């Protein structure tokens, strides 16, 4: 049963990922990215990482893809010529991606482990352990992440302000 669900979800995710790469329209690509992220959230649920699945949907599907769509609409790129595969670049890209996937799989399967997944605990207890770790062992990284978000916010404000000042000068 779990194997069937895994096969279906992974095929869906791969198809959506290919759709992101091959879609002519950037908005369609963003929508396919959204579906792909939903599939990955389903895989996280299969791996018993419920909180991460929730966060992935919230952060990626909720914020990141919405931001992408917003920027695509803002820049209004629908007027450009449609994208097409150019011979040499396409062949080089496919060969490079094939080499990458075969190399990664060779490395991954060399250290093959026969054991299955250990039994998962209750959802609530796992969350409690998670939060405990976040506020004891990983307290410093959490603080650093807070500063990082603040710095990123300030950086984006500065980036967008400087350009508008230049435009005013012109």
């Amino acid at each position, binding site marked *: 049963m*779990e194997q069937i669900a*895994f096969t279906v979800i992974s095929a869906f*995710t*791969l198809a959506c*990922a290919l759709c*992101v*790469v091959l879609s002519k329209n*950037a908005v369609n*690509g963003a929508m396919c*990215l959204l579906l792909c*992220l939903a599939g990955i959230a389903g*895989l*996280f649920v*299969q*791996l018993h*990482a419920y*909180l*991460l699945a929730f966060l*992935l949907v919230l*952060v*990626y599907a909720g914020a*990141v893809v919405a*931001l*992408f769509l917003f*920027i695509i609409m*803002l*820049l209004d*790129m629908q007027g450009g010529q449609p*994208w097409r595969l150019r011979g040499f*670049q*396409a062949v*080089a*890209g496919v060969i*490079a*991606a*094939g080499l*990458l996937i075969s190399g*990664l*799989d060779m490395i*991954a*399967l060399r250290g*093959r*482990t026969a054991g*299955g*997944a250990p039994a998962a605990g209750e959802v609530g207890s796992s969350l409690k352990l*998670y939060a405990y*770790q976040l506020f004891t062992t990983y307290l410093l990284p959490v603080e650093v*992440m807070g500063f*990082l*978000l603040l710095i*990123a*916010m300030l*950086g*984006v404000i500065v*980036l967008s302000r*400087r*350009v*508008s000042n*230049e*435009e005013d000068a012109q």
Partner: protein
Amino acid sequence: MTPSLDSYVMLSSALFAIGFLGVLVRRNTLVIYMCLELMLVAATLALVAFSRFNGTEEGDVFVFFILTVAAAEVAVGLGIIVALFRARQTVQVDQLDSLKN
């Protein structure tokens, strides 16, 4: 029967390769950026699978941090792309060739 670790690793490497292919063949900066996000999420999937099959929680905590950094990174990257568009009126990498002699 539950899926094995190998199948998760193969799936995540396939997703990573698809994202890599997109970065190589597409010419629109925004689509390239979406493919970069796809690669990041593929690596995240591998990390979660390894963490689950290893029986520890550390990988999940790391993925939590990766998601935070990715959110900040997307905000900054899209800010840069908008600034680029305002300066050059294009986001096609073929036309961003001012370093070409």
